[in-house]
Every structure is written in C-alpha cells, then in structure tokens.
C-alpha cells in the first residue's frame, strides 16, 4: 500500500495527476483495502471468464476479415469504415464450456488504424514492450492431416507442423496463427508430453 501511495504522490507532485485525482485514487484504494481486511482476506484481482475479443490491426481490415471469414467460416458483423467484428459463432450461441449467461462469444475485431490510437477514451496508446506473437484457435474435431487438407482447400499453403496436435500458418499480413484441438492445454505438456508435444 505504501508503495502504491508513494507512486501516486509522486505522480501528483510531478504534475501527472491532479490533486482531485490523487484524492480519488487514494480514497478508493484505502476503502478497498479496508474492505479486504474486514472480510479477512487480501484484495484479489478480477476473475476473467474468457477472451472477449482480440483487436487485430493491419493495413487492410477488409482483406483480413475476408480471409478469416473464408478460412474459419466466420460471419462479419457490425462493419464500419475502419473495422468489423467476426464472432466465433452465431447470435444467441454460448461460448464452448461456459455456463454463465453474461459471457458473450469471443470475436476478432479486424481494424485499420494507427497503432497509437487511444485505448478507450485515454491518451494515445503506449508503445508496448511486449507482443502477442501468435494466437492459437481451438477448432472442433482437430486432425492435423485433415487440417492441412482444409487449409489447402481454401488456398492456404504455408502450413507447418506444431507437434502432433497443432499446425501453424501465416495470415495475409504475416501474422502467425496456430490451430489446435481441445487436447492442447496449459497442462498437457506435463501430463502427456509424449502425445501432446511441446506446441506452445
């Protein structure tokens, strides 16, 4: 807590935040910490249920969206002049494995915009020191050889093996995708390395 307070006091003293903002932050933090202590527990984070969406930025969002639609049978919804969403299913469907009613289908937003476009209502987006270098999709009834044939059928030829249970491809903008079955999990490398392969 002290380090947290010190950071924000520093921000205030160097003019990064206003006096009013400092008071808001410290009041919220103090009351949250107090509530935690009262409940006999340390403050915890947020329980995220699923990826809501990934924001895919590229030079031509229509070209990207058409490719993802063709290869992964995804509909395009809510198109604007700079982006479009591609949900992993139809309206009214629930995400696989999710019972809650307030968790929507994951979707990709294909968009074209500057990389420093504001995050929400904030200032220009920071330049990150981390990168999501690939995303893996879980597909139904995955079979590696059948997956290669399916890619070939839609004109995708740059397919590479990713162990016995996945393959890698690049999309039209050179972004790497991995396609895997349900058997590829965070723990399978430990419990079934011989059959799963180190594909992550």
């Amino acid at each position: 807590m002290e380090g947290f307070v010190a950071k924000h006091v520093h921000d205030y003293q160097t003019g990064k935040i206003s006096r009013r903002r400092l008071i808001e932050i410290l009041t919220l933090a103090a009351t949250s910490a107090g509530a935690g202590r009262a409940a006999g527990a340390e403050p915890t984070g947020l329980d995220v249920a699923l990826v809501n969406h990934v924001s895919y930025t590229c030079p031509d969002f229509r070209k990207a969206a058409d490719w993802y639609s063709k290869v992964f049978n995804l509909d395009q919804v809510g198109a604007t002049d700079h982006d479009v969403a591609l949900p992993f299913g139809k309206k009214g469907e629930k995400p696989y494995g999710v019972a809650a009613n307030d968790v929507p289908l994951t979707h990709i937003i294909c968009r074209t915009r500057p990389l420093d476009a504001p995050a929400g209502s904030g200032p220009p987006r920071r330049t990150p020191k981390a990168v999501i270098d690939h995303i893996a999709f879980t597909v139904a009834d995955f079979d590696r050889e059948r997956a290669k044939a399916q890619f070939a059928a839609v004109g995708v030829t740059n397919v590479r093996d990713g162990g016995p249970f996945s393959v890698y491809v690049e999309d039209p903008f050179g972004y790497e995708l991995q396609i895997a079955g349900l058997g590829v999990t965070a723990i399978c490398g430990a419990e079934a390395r011989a059959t799963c392969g180190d594909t992550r």
Partner: protein
Amino acid sequence: MERFIADLVQGLDNGRIDRREFCQAVALAAAVYGAGDAAQAQAPRGFKIIGINHMSYTCPDYTRAREWYASVLNMKSESTRDDGQRANMMFGPEQGKGGSFLVARNPGVVASGSAGVKPGAQAVIDHVCYTVPNWDEPRVRATLHAKGLDVTGRDGSLHVYDVFDYDVQIASAAAENAFRR
C-alpha cells in the same frame, strides 16, 4: 420425391396436367434433387472455431508478466509448465473444456513450429479484451485502482496497461459484444 411424382402421375391421369407439363415438372424436380445431392457431397471447407486456445505473449521478463496477470486478472500459473523461461497462465473454464491460457515467455523462447516474434509482420494484436462476468462497476474500478493501475475507458469497458505497457481491456457482456456493435 416418390410421393411428388405419384401426385404428378395422378394429375396426368385425371387430366389436371398434360403430358408436356408432366415431363417439365419431373425434369425440374430431378435437377433440384441433383443439385442438393451435389451440395451435400461437397467436402466441408474451413474450420469451426471453438475458441481461443492460447495467446503467446513475449516480453522482457516473463516472471513480471506472470505476477501481473495472476494479481490483476486472477490467472493461475500451471506450475509444472513454468520452466524458468515461460509460464502458462490459465483462465476461464477448465482446461480442455473451453479454458484458455496466456503463455508468458521470455524473448527467444519459441514454441516448436512457431516462427516466434516476426519484425516483418504487418499486423499486430494491439490489445486483448477479457470478459468479467457479474460485472459490478464500482467493484471492478476499485479492484483496478487498488492494484495501482490508471483506468481509462467507459463504464463496462475499461482499459489498463500491464507491466509491459500492453493494453488490456476488461469488459462486461453488455458493453462489449460483437452483436451489439
């Protein structure tokens, strides 16, 4: 089809249609039937995505990412997969039943078959948005503030930066939904 043709024959027999109309109807029915067969016989194209299996997150120090995502988003590190170079951070449903994970890895730690970070790629994932169920605006904001994070965005759809300045969005189903754009 058999019933359809039987009806046509009855129509021909009782004079409701003439021979020419009968032949045209049968030929049309055969063409439609054949087209349906051909469509059914065509090999399925494309995949059916169930969800996001995992995301590969390369950063200067995976341990700091591991701590951040565990602390802020309650992701759980699969300890047996933490090899000192990367960690698998699980979230959502049970693994293998719809659950996902974030692979936090150090630079140069590349999965078998992957090309790793490619400077030449023209596309980037500039942020990832996570759904928080049972959204409670004051509680969510208080939790993020308590972690020392600056929060931007609007009610139901908030943005913060992780420890490596990667944009992380946290949203409710009401605020972020592909079908309500």
